[in-house]
């Protein structure tokens, strides 16, 4: 084989590698919940550019996941934008009743270094196991990261829901909070105590009164034995679910509030080692 042949074949191969990736990942497609949320804002360039940066969906794992087709709701990139929209725009910020504010959840979920955590980025992983996502903290000579898995994107998969995706982003960011503040960031294995979930799916629940955390102060904690104020990842996720279920803005679709209640109540009942002494919302059809 001549040098020219080698060069020609190498160049052809590279051209194939560098050609635009096929927009295929997980099981593509948009369900009614995602469509209902997207219809609130349409194809919004300012939003997807902002989320891309704020949530750091910036590594090349997003190339085959729709980053070059940012408004294609069938693909993980646009679905992640939808999850970020739920975090950033659906809460009413009812100061008297909400667990925490939009700004609290969003600042935690964002990837930049801030009072919640150090810098991290979010990867898309074509992993089809049970876990919806996981976080890597304390990496050596590399940024920490959150890995978002196929279950939260798979069309007709049970976790493919914009509210759930938003709450997963909040949950995973809390592992970064734990790490920054010097707390162990692993979940416990279940079943254990009241937690009926499996391996790596249980947390403690640290109840606090509704007004214990002023808006803008979710990042704080207090280990005073008489005044404990603390959050575990499933707890902050359930509080987000509760706020979306009951205190969403008036324009938010009923599928969003129903799903938030659905996820929140099941988590409260099954993912905490100690029992949680409240339910989210009234158990009625609509």
């Amino acid at each position, binding site marked *: 084989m001549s040098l020219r042949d080698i*060069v020609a074949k190498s160049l052809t191969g590279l051209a194939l590698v560098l050609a635009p990736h096929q927009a295929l990942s997980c099981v593509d497609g948009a369900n009614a919940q995602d469509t209902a949320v997207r219809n*609130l804002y349409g194809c919004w360039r300012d939003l997807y550019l902002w989320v891309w940066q704020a949530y750091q969906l910036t590594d090349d794992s997003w190339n085959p996941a729709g980053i070059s087709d940012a408004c294609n709701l069938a693909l993980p990139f646009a679905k992640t934008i939808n999850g970020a929209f739920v975090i950033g725009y659906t809460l009413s910020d009812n100061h008297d009743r909400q667990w925490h504010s939009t700004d609290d959840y969003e600042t935690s979920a964002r990837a930049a270094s801030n009072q919640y955590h150090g810098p991290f980025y979010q990867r898309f992983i074509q992993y089809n196991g*049970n876990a919806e996502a996981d976080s890597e903290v304390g990496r050596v000579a590399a940024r920490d990261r959150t890995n978002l898995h196929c279950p939260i994107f798979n069309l007709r998969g049970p976790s493919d829901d914009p509210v759930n995706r938003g709450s997963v982003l909040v949950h995973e960011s809390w592992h970064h909070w734990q790490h920054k503040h010097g707390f162990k960031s692993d979940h416990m294995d279940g079943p254990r105590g009241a937690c009926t979930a499996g391996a790596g799916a249980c947390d403690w629940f640290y109840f606090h009164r509704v007004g214990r955390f002023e808006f803008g102060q979710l990042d704080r904690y207090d280990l005073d034995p008489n005044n404990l104020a*603390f959050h575990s990842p499933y707890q902050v996720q359930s509080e987000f679910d509760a706020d979306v279920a009951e*205190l969403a803005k008036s324009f938010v679709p009923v599928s969003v509030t*129903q799903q938030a209640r659905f996820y929140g109540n099941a988590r409260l009942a099954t993912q905490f080692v100690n029992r949680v002494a409240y339910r989210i919302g009234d158990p009625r059809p*609509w």
Partner: protein
Amino acid sequence: MLTLAMSPARQRHFGGRCTRRMIWCLACVISASAFAEESGREPSGLGLTQPSEGVSKPPFVSRESVVNLPLLTAKTIDDFLGRVGSIPHSQAESIRAAVARAAADQAVVEELLKRLLTTPITDVGRHLMILSTLGELRNPRAVEPLKEFIWSDRPLVPPQQPGESVDTRTSFFNHDGALRARAAEILAYIGGRDADAAVLEIAARHPGAEVRIAAIDAYLFNHADSAEAKEELARIVRAEERKLIGIPRFKRGMDVSQFDQLVTDFYRRYPEEMPQWPSRLEEQTLQRTKPRSFPERQPAEPRR
């Protein structure tokens, strides 16, 4: 796709100079590919924006959409279920009214039940809409199929692949149990002697904790949280779940101080339900951050 087919004449014409250019080109492409591995593309490939701090979140002007629901009939069920989730939650009354117009239509109930019992469930969101619509119809014909759904010994949702092992900073969810729990709430809402008996049995004996707890709460809700209903539940539920009878509901119209007090009292009464102290990282891996003190929320002060 790039192709490199050249005629022999052209090959001779370009000769070695072309090969050198190609090698140079190859080097450039390899450099570019190395860069591409480190940072992904820009969304949609528009402009030259690179991620940076300080970009402001775009403001959103919300507008309540108007979603027209079709008349709910046996023929329009799928269209109805596809659209109903888009209705703003503040307009839930319009859903109730739309469903109420179909209350006398037995064919609607039958079609909904057929869809309810079609498993494995491939669209959880749609199934939640089916359950809510069935609940709003309050037709006793739904009681037995709902019991069948709740007690089914087959998985309702396709089991996910086990996948490779992941670390323990993950997020999981059991949709199967959550769906059965929602069905228990709907059964309780339908009410009547048979439904009530079924809900009590679920509260006492269902293997899923989320289903039992949902049944306890829903039974109370549909019996006006009465003392009699609490006593009835206390007689049948598991001993360790008696303490959950009558726990408060976090909801938009709640009295916050009463809610806080009820939950605080629960943990005082049952100190065994207090959490373990948060675990610290080992000293050598601890990132030193001091806890910041913070004042409590001041409820009376107007803001925002």
